[in-house]
């Protein structure tokens, strides 16, 4: 097992990162040209030029950008004795690899957000810590898992730090596409492009890593269309599968206006319920913890000390923003499932070879395909994508989904 195992179907990227990790060792002066000429392919780009201080990982959601970044971080911290013998950095066993992967390494900081954006305030704090020397004497790695959620101001705060970081600091930014990063950020980073992992590879990793039945794994990998995290969730969570099936009933019912409106309502309600579930799981505990930390009287609803209302309010605001984000994400997933359905319809209409994402719904897909023309299917896919854009622009969710549903009805 090595840290690269979880990177599904990204051989090219792995090769590049391994080379970089080797060069990083050269920079640290831990080894010269390691070993012999066995791995000359990677060795050629080596020297110290394989390593750089800022990387931008891009790729479709779920292709494992954050996983790649974390694996790279681990390989930078790898202290395996095998390295002296020409082993690949990132053994997965040494203390450096292990702690970096589980997130407890002192020099690896992973930044992600569960709200809609990362603001200037948090970013300043990050820049400050980036200027320090690594505690372990190797590399200080900062992973920005949601760098597409940086506000413009926050991204500008980062510029200076990314351009000329402290000698042993490495920035790893992750974003779905290059366009999601400011041009000024982009130009300061080395770009790594991950591809959508093939369905078979995803199914394989589900079986190998999570011990899921091969049949279920194949279904989940197909349905998730290359999104590894989503595939895992579909395979493990019956509720998620049920919700997905519910969403996919919509295309069969859109002929009737009443069903359109009711379907839109239930879609939005389901997203709201998701958000509420998350809120119930996390919010109450968070609130109680903060209350205890601020010295509230024991018991629920106990009296708060003076001057703590502000902190409570801040937490409440954050929880509210998180609820918005959760609701939006859940709606977005539903929309992607919908578009996968119409993609299948189009594939059937054109008689394209290859597997359907919704193989188990082949009958429904064929029915819709028989009832409409490819032009209409394309327009419907457009409508689903337009709804995603509308949600991004903050259009009221119910309204946006309704507009989409009636557009699906029109075909």
């Amino acid at each position, binding site marked *: 097992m090595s840290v690269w195992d979880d990177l599904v179907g990204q051989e090219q990227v792995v090769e590049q990162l391994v080379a970089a990790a080797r060069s990083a060792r050269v920079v640290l002066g831990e080894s010269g040209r390691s070993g012999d000429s066995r791995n000359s392919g990677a060795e050629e780009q080596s020297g110290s030029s394989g390593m750089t201080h800022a990387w931008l990982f891009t790729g479709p959601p779920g292709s494992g950008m954050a996983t790649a970044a974390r694996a790279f971080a681990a390989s930078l911290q790898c202290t395996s004795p095998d390295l002296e013998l020409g082993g690949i950095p990132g053994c997965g066993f040494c203390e450096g690899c292990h702690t970096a992967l589980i997130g407890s390494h002192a020099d690896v900081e992973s930044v992600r957000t569960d709200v809609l954006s990362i603001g200037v305030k948090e970013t300043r704090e990050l820049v400050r810590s980036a200027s320090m020397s690594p505690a372990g004497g190797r590399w200080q790695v900062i992973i920005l898992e949601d760098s597409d959620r940086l506000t413009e101001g926050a991204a500008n705060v980062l510029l200076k730090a990314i351009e000329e970081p402290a000698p042993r600091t490495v920035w790893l930014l992750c974003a779905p596409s290059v366009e999601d990063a400011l041009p000024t950020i982009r130009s300061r980073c080395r770009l790594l492009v991950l591809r959508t992992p093939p369905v078979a590879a995803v199914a394989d990793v589900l079986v190998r890593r999570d011990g899921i039945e091969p049949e279920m794994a194949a279904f989940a990998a197909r349905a998730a269309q290359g999104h590894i995290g989503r595939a895992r969730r579909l395979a493990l969570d019956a509720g998620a599968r049920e919700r997905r099936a519910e969403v996919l009933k919509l295309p069969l019912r859109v002929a*009737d*206006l*009443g*069903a*359109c*409106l*009711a379907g839109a309502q239930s879609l939005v309600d389901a997203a709201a319920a998701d958000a509420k579930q998350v809120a119930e799981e996390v919010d109450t505990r968070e609130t109680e913890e903060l209350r205890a930390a601020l010295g509230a009287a024991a018991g629920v609803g106990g009296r708060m000390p003076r001057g703590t209302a502000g902190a409570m309010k801040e937490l409440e605001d954050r929880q509210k923003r998180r609820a918005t984000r959760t609701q939006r994400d859940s709606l977005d997933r539903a929309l992607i499932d919908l578009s996968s359905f119409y993609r299948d319809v189009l594939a059937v209409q054109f008689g394209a070879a290859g597997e359907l994402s919704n193989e188990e719904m082949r009958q429904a897909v064929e029915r819709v395909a028989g009832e409409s023309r490819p032009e209409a299917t394309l327009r419907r896919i457009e409508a689903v994508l337009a709804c995603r854009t*509308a949600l991004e*622009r*903050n*259009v*009221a969710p*119910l*309204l*946006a989904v*309704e*507009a989409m549903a*009636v*557009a699906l*009805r*029109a075909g």
Partner: protein
Amino acid sequence: MAKKPTEDLLAPLTVVVGQEELLLDRAVAQATTAARQADPDTDVRDLQPGALQPGMLSELTSPSLFSERKVIVVRAAQDLAADTVKEVKAYLDDPAPEVMLVLVHAGGAKGKALLDAAKKAGAREVTCPKLTKPAEKLAFVRAEFRATGRSASEDACKALLDAVGSDLRELASACSQLAADTEGTIDETVVARYYTGRAESSGFQVADLAVTGRTAEALGQLRWALAVGEKPTGIVFALASGVRSIGRVATADRGMRPGDLARELGMPPWKIDRVRQQLRGWSGDGVAAALRAIADADAAVKGGSGDPAYALEQCVVAVSRAARSQR
């Protein structure tokens, strides 16, 4: 406004309950004026909210050397501190002669104990609830004109309400102004000479006009709504919920009983009836087109376009066109 002329305005204890400022003031003024009429030397103490401190009440109600009549007005009695409430209650059990106590209370749950105690002590009660329904406001305007001894036409009262808005103080002053400045019957043209325009216009009024296909009126109302500072997002929301309820009521099962239907759609029965009246002229495709136009407008007013007002106009036109799509 339970003003009974036979009531004893000089009752030793009066509670004025409600939240309509103007009416509260009037009720208090009525009591103090009556007291002054009975005895010109009456000492009126009008205690603003928070002015009544512990200990003050017994000082105020203790007999004075000249044994003059006293009126003590306590404003915002619901906000009194617990200690002061205790004092007031003690006073209620043992009222002083020649003292009129007027408690102004907002009603509601806050400070309810004091209100109940006062009622139990046999207080004269004047209620001044907020006027919320248009009909109540109309009645108020009519009563204002009648009080000044002038006759006003129904249309004039409506026009005045449209132009001045629903603030009672402003309405009252507008009425007295009109009564002072004009002669004869007050009709629409007289009102129009002094007051024009529209003080209040909401997105829901725009939506009601648009879904019944009255394009011109809807656009006019939209302009007023924007002019009085309605938020574009609110107007879009009103349009969306208008069209949404059209779609849902139109597609609902006709055979259902009104109560079940209301539960199914999550709307009150009166609203279903109203939406049914708006249904005429709508078609399924009309609802679809309208919803899409509204969704576009929502994106536009949330920063998608440079001119929210234009986007809204387009949207209103699209909705009212859809409202006539069947013809």
